């Protein structure tokens, strides 16, 4: 082997050591992170647009006059709790404690369903008693679009987690496929993260 060829072979070996091959596990994680980056841009643009509309309008109503903080504070707490149950579900399946995994995943799904139920209750109250509607003004329109878009994400997460729960209950999801739960967890925590920002920008400020 010539000296140049030997150097080239050595360089390839160094590159291979630094860059591990893409396994189905980390490829899926990379895919989910890429999706979340795009989704974060969508939410970021929507929140920036909300800020621009609000700052530019001196007649923007105070959210405290229309939106209830108690209900949404409880909703925030529920989502934070469901994030904890999600990481516990992941830890359980990674250590092959399947019964514990099913319990924590069921609690995560329950948290999502509770959140959606409370959001439906809040919307019902705002649309009915408060007379808010997406057609009334920009305050109402931005509120329903932002919280509705986030609610769609929660609904998607509930379906996603339910599928993983059912697969765990029927024995189709094994500890060897724990990476699937980790990828679903990324999505669920992202939904929690976005709600933290929406809660602050839409309800509290």
């Amino acid at each position, binding site marked *: 082997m010539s000296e140049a060829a030997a150097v080239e072979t050595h360089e390839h070996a160094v590159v291979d050591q630094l860059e591990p091959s893409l396994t189905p596990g980390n490829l899926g*994680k*990379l895919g989910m*992170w*890429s999706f*979340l*980056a*795009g989704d*974060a*841009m969508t939410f*970021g*643009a929507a*929140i*920036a647009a909300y*800020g*621009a509309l609000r*700052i*530019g309008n*001196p007649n923007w109503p105070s959210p405290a006059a229309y939106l209830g*903080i108690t209900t949404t*504070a409880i909703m*925030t*707490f529920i989502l*934070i*709790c469901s*994030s*904890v149950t*999600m*990481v*516990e579900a*992941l*830890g359980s399946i*990674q*250590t*092959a404690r399947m019964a514990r995994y099913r319990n924590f995943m069921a609690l995560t799904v329950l948290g999502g369903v509770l959140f959606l139920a409370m959001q439906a209750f809040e919307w019902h109250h705002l649309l009915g008693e408060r007379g808010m509607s997406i057609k009334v003004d920009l305050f109402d329109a931005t509120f329903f679009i932002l919280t509705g878009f986030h609610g769609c994400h929660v609904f998607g997460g509930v379906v996603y987690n339910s599928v993983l729960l059912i697969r765990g209950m029927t024995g189709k999801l*094994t*500890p*060897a496929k*724990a990476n699937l739960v*980790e990828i679903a*967890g*990324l999505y669920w*925590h*992202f939904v*929690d*993260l976005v709600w*933290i*920002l929406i*809660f*602050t*920008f839409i309800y*509290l*400020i």
Partner: protein
Amino acid sequence: MTTQAAISGHEAEHSGPNYIAVFIYLSILTAIELGVYAMGLPQVAKVGLLVALAWAKAVLVAMYFMHLAMERKGLAIIAIIPVILVTFLCFMLLPDLTTRMWTKFDHPRPVTDAAEMGAHPVAPPPMQTP
């Protein structure tokens, strides 16, 4: 992979952050947020504090629940790109916002009406006939 192998292979992976501690921090920060909201602070201080608290909570979720603190740097770069782009977007909106905010303060407009200019109105330039 056997179940035993899965246990031994993943136990080390799971020995990560204390999630209950993260949960407690998030709950405390949420309680502080509600306190700031209820305290009746001046709007600038209230907005500044609430935004800082929200970002602290978001960073906690991303770093520990989403495992960014333990992941390879490549994923952190993917995660930070939307933050940079949205910050850039906010700066792009600033010129428009500052212009519209300026109009809220009702600065006295320069007098252009001849009647308001008193005894020495400036005559308009003569019409040009083709």
